[in-house]
């Protein structure tokens, strides 16, 4: 049975996971330089060991509206994703752990499970009894055509 390794993190109170194969590394929160006039979910750019990479705010990108409380600020991390040979950072509220799921533990996305657009979700994972994990589709979230369209608007 195919086993999937996933990195678990929190956005607000909800648990999310992404495929570990897409994750290059996880770094602590650093100063982000804002880019004037960029899209609202683009936090700016950071210096990752001499390379300048863009960072997006995953919560804003997914349209989630959680206030950044003190707790989440303290534990905030940046997940560095490798997408089409380029590095992109994503801010998350807290890293939980690495989770292994068998493919039979993954169900297709039901209607109205969260506030997130269904197209950004790969599926729902069931983990340790009733804990629901939302498996995010990084390719779709970072889709260049969609984002370029947003810039044009």
């Amino acid at each position, binding site marked *: 049975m195919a086993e999937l390794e996933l990195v678990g993190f929190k956005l607000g109170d909800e648990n999310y996971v992404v495929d570990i194969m897409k994750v290059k590394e996880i770094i602590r929160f650093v100063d982000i330089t804002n*880019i*004037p006039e960029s899209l609202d979910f683009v936090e700016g750019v*950071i210096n990752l060991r001499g390379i300048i990479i863009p960072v997006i705010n995953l919560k804003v990108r997914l349209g989630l509206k959680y206030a950044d409380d003190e707790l989440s600020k303290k534990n905030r991390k940046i997940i560095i994703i490798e997408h089409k040979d380029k590095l992109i950072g994503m801010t998350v509220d807290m890293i939980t752990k690495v989770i292994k799921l068998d493919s039979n533990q993954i169900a297709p996305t039901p209607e109205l499970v969260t506030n997130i657009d269904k197209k950004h979700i790969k599926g729902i994972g069931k983990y340790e009894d009733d804990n629901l994990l939302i498996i995010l589709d990084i390719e779709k979230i970072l889709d260049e055509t969609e984002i370029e369209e947003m810039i044009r608007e």
Partner: protein
Amino acid sequence: MDFDNSEFIKDFLEEAYEKIEIINDNLLNLEKNPEDENILNEIFRAAHTVKGSAGTMGFESVQNVMHKIENIFDELRKKNLEFSINLNDMLFKGMDAINEMITNIENSSEEGIEVDEITTELESFLSDGSGEKKVQVNDENKDDVDISIKLSDIELDIMKQTEKQNGKIYVLTIYFSEDSMMPSVGRFLVMQEVRNNSEIIKTIPDEQELNKDEFIPYVKILVGLKSSIEDIQEKVKIPNEVIKVDIDDFEIETKDNKDDKKTDVEDLKKEKKKIIDKNKTKEKKDIINSLRVDSVKIDELLNLIGEQIINTSRYFRLEDECEKILQKGKRFSNIIKDIEDELPEESIEVYSCLMRSMRELSEEFKEINQMTRRLNNEMQQNTMKIRMLPVEKVFKRFPRMIRDISKELGKDIELIIEGQETELDKTVIEVLGDPLVHIIRNALDHGIESKEERLKAGKDPVGSIRLTASHQGNRIIIEVSDDGKGLDRNSIIKKAVEKGLIEKESKDLMKDSDVFSLIFEPGFSTAASVTGLSGRGVGMDVVKRSIEKVNGSVEVHSEKGKGTRVIIFLPLTMAIINALLIRGLDQVFSIPLNLVEETIKLKKADIYNLKNTKATKIRDEVVSLISIEELFNIPSKERDSFFVVIVEAAGKKVGIVVDKLYGEQEVVIKNLDSYLVKTPGVAGANILGDGRVSIILDINKLIKRVSND
């Protein structure tokens, strides 16, 4: 082609471009010194190389044209053909065709043009009885070749037997072509033909030597013939492999000892080596002195060094930490001074020991850091120098261009080039070509007068254009000057008024330099007639824009009747610029320093409110003010006192209101190429000393946008 040659193609193209340049340069030199053997040889060698590699790659048209050019130079070298301007025009035409084909190969991997006409035309220069002389030359060669062959006893027996069977014994001398792609294969084919048509008694060099994969100028074979002399001559003469076959009678003289036999082969080897060496020495020298490296690799190295510099800045902070601890220690010793007697002696000892160690540590840090700073600096400078190329790369094309155009215009023009060894960043070099072509064409077309006009004005009938490059501080200055008629102030003003670029009333107030700089405005052209060369009015504004793109600037000076000078100022490198660091929008931004005129501090009271903009007066000049927020369409914040950066951008002077000035700094430009951050007004980014990122503003774009709103 049936093998994957993409890797070789790159090498082939690079080599071809290099050799084409060499040939074109030397063709020009040849016009001045048609007898110079060095020039003839150099062209011949370059043509030979390109022909050979084009053949290997299967580009037949390039090979054919180059072959003809090579032949012409071979004849010129041997003085069988006389040099003429007509011939040179034809040679240039041939080289143009080759250049076009090479460019086509680069773009679409096909040669893409018909060359039959060109090869025939080139051939026509060759067909005046030169073939006859060629044989003669080869016969001269033959004189150097000793056709005697020494035989051992066994070989003598074999020979006698063959003589009985096949009659007379002959010596075949086969001269091989240097152009053979695979000399050993060629020889194998030749030997097979020899074997089929004769009985081989002995070959010099021996068969083992013949199987080696290197060029051998000729081979001598002692044979008894199985077919006629004519027959064997024709069969053995395989095209592309064999130049000539001589058949001589063999007569037995006296037997010689073994030592002589050896020297015979040795001589042949030596001769072979001599010929090869002659061809290789020049190229070998080039190989030793330079190394082809992908520029991406250098950029990567530069990135790593930048990273290292940022990393080591953390050590510099440690130096400060040590200093702080020392200061605290001193304060502590002041505090305990009064109660020193009450403390146990040991504690005082431990304390002073601690302080001593701390001082030593601090000293050590200072020393290491000083060294590291110096090394980092040198490392960065040296790596950047690898990216630099001599400006000669661009200047090279102009002698030919001026030759052709002045011929076309019927003007006599001399080109003087100076400082072509001056080095510039590769990126800048690449951008520089087109602007210079525009400027020089303008000088040729509009600057330099016709011969009659020049004589009438009491000038030398030969016009001159001077192209110079020089170093000045951290800038490179490239200047194009001519001794032509100069810019005409009145006609520029007239044109500018017509085009609505200036108000008619302001014309008398304008300084010459302001008038002349109008030629850089889009759509401006003073040429009465539009020629094929220049004068469509798209030239000079494109020139200005291209140069600004690489952070340079351009000026024009002119004196009526005396000439015009166009001066281009360029940064030494594209990877590093001088920037002014400022604070605004709660972060640090970088503004390229080449655009900054000056900085001033102002108070709220210094601002005038015009219709819908704000402005201030600087030395009686009204300068409009734009806040850093407004540049990005964000409502301006209220400031009581602030700094203004006066920039000259998008053709006007504007003051940018910022919160704070941090001063000038050399910054390493990093690309910000991500679809996520594609916003106007961002020219790139750089990493600050503390590791944070600062955005480099594209001032030209930002100001143009604000003024269009």
